[in-house]
């Protein structure tokens, strides 16, 4: 059994090596690539140009602090706004759809079309949705909001209906036997029973949308990505690096907040309460230092 497993794994690995060499083709054309990267890094990327944190010359800055009128601040705040709106709208739309898609809550004639709809919305990446909505709404945040909302519905809907399908059968049976209708069962049983997972997914989705907000911005759908795109076109790579560092810092902060909130709602947690070190260092360096501390309390019989 072990030999056969080893043989299969080896074959898959060798196949991937073969495909890799097949795709690379001629190795000669890679000569000097590393040197080019070093030159590019030294001449164009480093040091980052922190002028992105200074106030723009136009429009005139009314704020006392220059940073509030800077490209970085305006861009990241718009990205956060887009991500927040898309997450809230996406959640509100995906929740009823996920109830319809859950096979333990809805009959197959409702579950199947709902799943197909969610899969359709998920199959196009947010960046493609952004391009489509830019045709309708022109360049700007509105296209970004719609693009991210559509993708959020598809992605969050799948996570949510899988959570609902994972709840215990006994509460559903009790509801069914006592004659509760589908809406009551979903509202009173399925949603509260899977609430921890639903909240965890929403927080994850917000974090995801912030990260991808910069990507959809690249095609003109608002947010910091719009500025990134402009600097890329103007070959101002040092400013691009500065914005990327700012995005990285914001994402790490949101990641930390999100993980803290998610670990609070996941009892016995599938999410480990994070430390700063766990965000930067590989798991092997940190996991033994902070085991998940969530514990169930039990109220003892008072009699």
């Amino acid at each position, binding site marked *: 059994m072990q030999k056969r497993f080893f043989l299969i794994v080896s074959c898959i690995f060798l196949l991937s090596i073969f495909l890799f060499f097949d795709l690379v083709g001629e190795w000669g054309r890679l000569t000097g690539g590393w040197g080019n990267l070093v030159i590019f890094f030294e001449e164009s990327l480093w040091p980052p140009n922190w002028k992105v944190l200074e106030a723009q010359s136009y429009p005139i800055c009314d704020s006392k602090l220059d940073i509030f009128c800077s490209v970085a601040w305006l861009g990241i705040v718009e990205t956060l706004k887009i991500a927040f709106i898309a997450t809230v709208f996406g959640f509100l739309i995906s929740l009823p759809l996920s109830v319809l898609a859950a096979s333990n809550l809805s009959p197959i004639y409702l579950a199947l079309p709902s799943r197909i709809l969610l899969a359709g919305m998920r199959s196009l990446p947010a960046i493609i949705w952004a391009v489509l909505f830019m045709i309708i709404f022109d360049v700007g945040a509105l296209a970004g909001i719609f693009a991210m909302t559509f993708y959020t519905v598809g992605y969050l809907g799948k996570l949510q209906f899988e959570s609902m399908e994972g709840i215990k059968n*006994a509460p559903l049976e009790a509801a069914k036997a006592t004659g509760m209708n589908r809406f009551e069962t979903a509202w009173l049983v399925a949603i509260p029973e899977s609430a921890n997972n639903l909240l965890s997914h929403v927080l994850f989705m917000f974090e995801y949308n912030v990260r991808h907000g910069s990507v959809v911005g690249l095609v003109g759908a608002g947010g910091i990505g719009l500025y990134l795109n402009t600097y890329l076109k103007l070959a101002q790579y040092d400013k691009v690096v500065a914005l990327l560092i700012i995005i990285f810092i914001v994402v790490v902060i949101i990641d930390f907040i999100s993980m803290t909130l998610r670990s609070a709602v996941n009892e016995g947690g599938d999410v480990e309460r994070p430390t700063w070190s766990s965000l930067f260092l590989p798991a092997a360096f940190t996991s033994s230092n902070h085991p998940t501390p969530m514990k169930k309390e039990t109220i003892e019989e008072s009699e």
Partner: protein
Amino acid sequence: MNEELAHLHEVSIGYVEPLVQDITIEIAAGDVIAILGPSGIGKTTLLRTIAGLVRPLSGDVELGVEPRGGLGYIPQRLGLVGNLSVRANVEMGARVRLSKWHLPFLPLPKDLNEEVTNCLESLGIDHLAEQPVRILSGGQQRRVATARSIAQAPKLLLADEFLGELDDDNVEIVMSAVQHVIDKQNSALVMVEHHEELARQVANRIWKIHDGRLIEED
């Protein structure tokens, strides 16, 4: 003759192979029926068949009560919503007494709210009303499940080992609350029970499953 609440006619129950065959019985108002027998013999399946959760392999199950509000069911694993408070779980029972068009996020009418409070008090869990069910002990959860069914004021209550994990005092509290509903509503209780002695204390009819047949003791 008491009002007939359910009638099973030549029913065979099971999932693929029949577990119990040729069941012809009736359940009347005022009955407290205990189903006895070893594990895996079909007691829970019989209860689930009466509850409409499993189709009988053959025969007819006729209910004389409306499932909505009329039929109470306490599954073996209780079927409580762990993230909701004790009160919210008990309210769920009271809610099925309302029309199905009453939206589930609207508050209960005042009289039903008072009945929920009475149920909590009668089961001795009013002090836990705002606690989430998941942090309660097994015995407390059983009392919550009972309170939820009582709040429903069912005509036919089906309970799967709901007296398990309860000490003598709590069995008395639970059975007194259930008996009160049976007397007030002129309803019936059918329960699956492992502890034969306990079952004989509380039931006025005993059904035993033996060799794939349901036999009623005289």
